[in-house]
């Protein structure tokens, strides 16, 4: 079956621009997660959705970052006024159940480069 997909696979933008990153989770998965991974580091949690609502957004670094999941399926991570430090691979994952008791299925990621 189809896994988690993310678009675009690569995004190059200029400092100060706005970007949107999209995640299509596995059909039927109620939980959706966003992580950010810098070179040589492990993924860093950003935000977690249970259905349409953000259950935990404690990992968002500042108010330039925002994510939505309006219909409980596709999610969009939005970054305003991008900075060079935002350059990283942004990973999306989904899982069928809640509370971290199940594995998470990861997409291939979007590599964001801010020039």
């Amino acid at each position, binding site marked *: 079956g189809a896994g988690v997909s993310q678009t675009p696979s690569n995004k190059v933008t200029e400092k100060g621009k706005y970007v949107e990153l999209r995640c299509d989770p596995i059909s039927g998965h109620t939980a959706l997660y966003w992580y950010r991974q810098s070179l040589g580091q492990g993924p860093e*949690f950003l935000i977690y959705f249970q259905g349409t609502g953000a259950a935990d957004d404690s990992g968002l670094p500042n108010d330039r970052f925002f994510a939505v999941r309006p219909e409980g399926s596709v999610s969009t991570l939005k970054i305003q006024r991008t900075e060079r430090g935002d350059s990283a*691979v942004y*990973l999306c994952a989904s899982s069928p159940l809640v509370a*971290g*008791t199940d594995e998470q299925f*990861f997409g*291939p*990621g979007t590599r964001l480069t801010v020039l």
Partner: protein
Amino acid sequence: SQQGEEDPQALSIQEGENATMNCSYKTSINNLQWYRQNSGRGLVHLILIRSNEREKHSGRLRVTLDTSKKSSSLLITASRAADTASYFCATAPGSGNTGKLIFGQGTTLQVKP
């Protein structure tokens, strides 16, 4: 912030040898998971061990968990060149569990044919 510390950071072995990676964490956990990542992109789940379990096996993988020492190990037996990848431990926090995972910095494994 990242909870896990993994060692070694890099490991190079010959095909057929066993590879052992260690992970330590700081807070109480609900479960601990190991993931593999190729080419710096998507992660693949390998195995999950719950906080009340001490050892788990899956094929050539063996995971141990010592909650008193807040540490885990991943053993890959009879390694293959295809096992070359980065391996991450990830913990699910034990209180106010929201499903997020906290990853370590990873171990880069190279298996030479």
